[in-house]
């Protein structure tokens, strides 16, 4: 019988702890598949964030470091600079990357640090129970913006890809959505490219993945992916924001 699907061996056997319908799991699988397809097994250091993906160190089948909240790009910098021949990636949520860790991500990008960053934007603080994130949409309810996010009180959502694309350091910046098969396939291509750039020594690459949090959005899994596709993409347009190969 022909094998049509196999679990990548860049993931361990540990079952994910993610909620049903959470797209963190898809993001993990895409990253792991790309690493396997690039043949870098035994040459990878992954950095896990603080957030729902903190246990990423149990899932990726490579050496893993757990970083303090928001500091993954700095930790990745230390690992990469002392092991320049290894593939180093940081996996971060939006609270981690776009709030407490803004300095770390901007400067890693500005230095053109030769690492790959996977940025999970689910517009909410998942792990701590649904508080407002820097990427929460205007009007979106969270446990700390119960009437919906307002410009007057909370300001506007932060658009990380647009911001980092203004810097000269990055080699590749793209935003994708984990909302449906076609977009998941696009996301995989972008992640692969982000790793290829690192392997080729082209410098900092980041892929933002619009992601679902059915649990804290109070939605079913299908409502949640629809929200990603219909609502989040309006504020966070998909596309490639920087690609030095095309400049």
């Amino acid at each position: 019988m022909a094998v049509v699907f196999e679990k990548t061996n860049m993931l361990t056997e540990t079952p994910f702890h993610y909620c049903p319908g959470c797209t963190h799991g898809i993001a993990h699988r895409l990253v792991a598949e790309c690493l396997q397809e690039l043949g870098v097994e035994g040459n990878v250091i992954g950095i896990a964030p603080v957030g729902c993906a903190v246990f990423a160190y149990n899932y990726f089948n490579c050496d893993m470091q757990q970083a303090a909240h928001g500091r993954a790009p700095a930790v990745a910098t230390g690992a990469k600079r002392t092991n320049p021949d290894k593939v180093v990636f940081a996996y971060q949520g939006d609270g981690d990357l776009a709030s407490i860790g803004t300095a770390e991500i901007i400067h890693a990008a500005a230095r053109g640090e030769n690492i790959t960053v996977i940025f999970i934007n689910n517009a909410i603080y998942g792990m701590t129970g649904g508080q407002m994130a820097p990427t929460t949409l205007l009007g979106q309810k969270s446990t700390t913006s119960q009437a919906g996010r307002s410009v007057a009180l909370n300001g506007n959502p932060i658009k990380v890809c647009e911001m980092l694309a203004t810097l000269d350091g990055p080699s590749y910046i793209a935003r994708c959505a984990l909302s449906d098969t076609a977009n998941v396939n696009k996301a995989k291509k972008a992640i692969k490219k982000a790793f290829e750039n690192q392997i080729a020594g082209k410098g900092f690459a980041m892929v933002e993945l619009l992601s679902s949090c059915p649990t804290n959005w109070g939605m079913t899994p299908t409502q949640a992916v629809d929200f990603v596709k219909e609502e989040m993409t309006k504020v966070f347009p998909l596309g490639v924001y920087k690609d030095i190969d095309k400049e």
Partner: protein
Amino acid sequence: MKVLMKGNEAVAEAAVRGGCRAFFGYPITPQNEIPEYLSRRLPEVGGCFIQAESEVSAINMVYGAAAAGARAMTSSSSPGISLKQEGISYICGAELPCVIVNMVRGGPGLGGIQPAQSDYFQTVKGGGHGDYHMLVYAPNTVQEAVNIMYDAFDKADAYRMPVMILGDGMIGQIMEAVELPPIKDPANFPKKDWATDGTGVGKDRRIVNSLYIEPDVLEEVNHRLFARYDELKKNETRYEEFMCDDAEIVLVAYGTVARIAKSAVSELRAKGIKAGLIRPITLYPFPSEAINAIAAKDCVKSFITTELSMGQMIEDVKLAVNGLKPVDFYGRTGGNVMTPEDLVNYVLNKEDK
């Protein structure tokens, strides 16, 4: 052959000779010569230097490099060390070896840039969150700073914990003749089978982590760390005694102040007063047993702790003396430094009373 070197530069060179191959830091007076020196020196030995965007980032770069197996360090001064506390706590929790230099300046807040010892509590009692300690050295000469820095990575690797070297603007800026030891061969450094250097897969893969969700597991980790601190106490406690054999008045001082106190002891002896000095070289582990043994001697009448602070180490001195003899305090702060005469007069005034 001795060379004349500024303290900060001598420490930087000793770091390289002791195996340092990665430095991450952020500028702050009075330690800037360390990053400046290493920015040109480390590339010569195939090492890496990064001026980070902040002390927070710098210590987390140290975390990543140390976790991946490198001999990595950072240096800073008080306000910057405050920012590093989160990272230091994580480094202790994840049991990573590294070296941190703190050329202490006065505080609180932005404070001043002159010598101070007001970070004693922060350094030996924690600073960051959680139950942890570091191996803490307080050199009192440039040569001693060099010798301590030279072996600091060996100690850090042996105990898998950070070593902190506590100096101040005086130690950092003073120029003294030093003998530099030969460069250590990295081939002789211990193998780190726990390091996440990227080669791990399957059951050989490694995780550097300080998260332990299960209470029993975290409790076990805390006990493991403290068993290591017991080893430190046994093997690494260092101090110097000066004229303590028949001393009636015993000064306790570390770092810069210990040099001043030593001169004061000699002047007091010349005046017929039997003074002595005990100088902790490690602040953690603290030489409590040595101090307690001196306190138990019949000839000893009292102790005077002298510091560039409002009185921090004195708490550990009192714990060590354990009520056997009175413990007085003489301190200067704000970047002011006492002279030997200040100390002599303080002792003479006390004797009069």
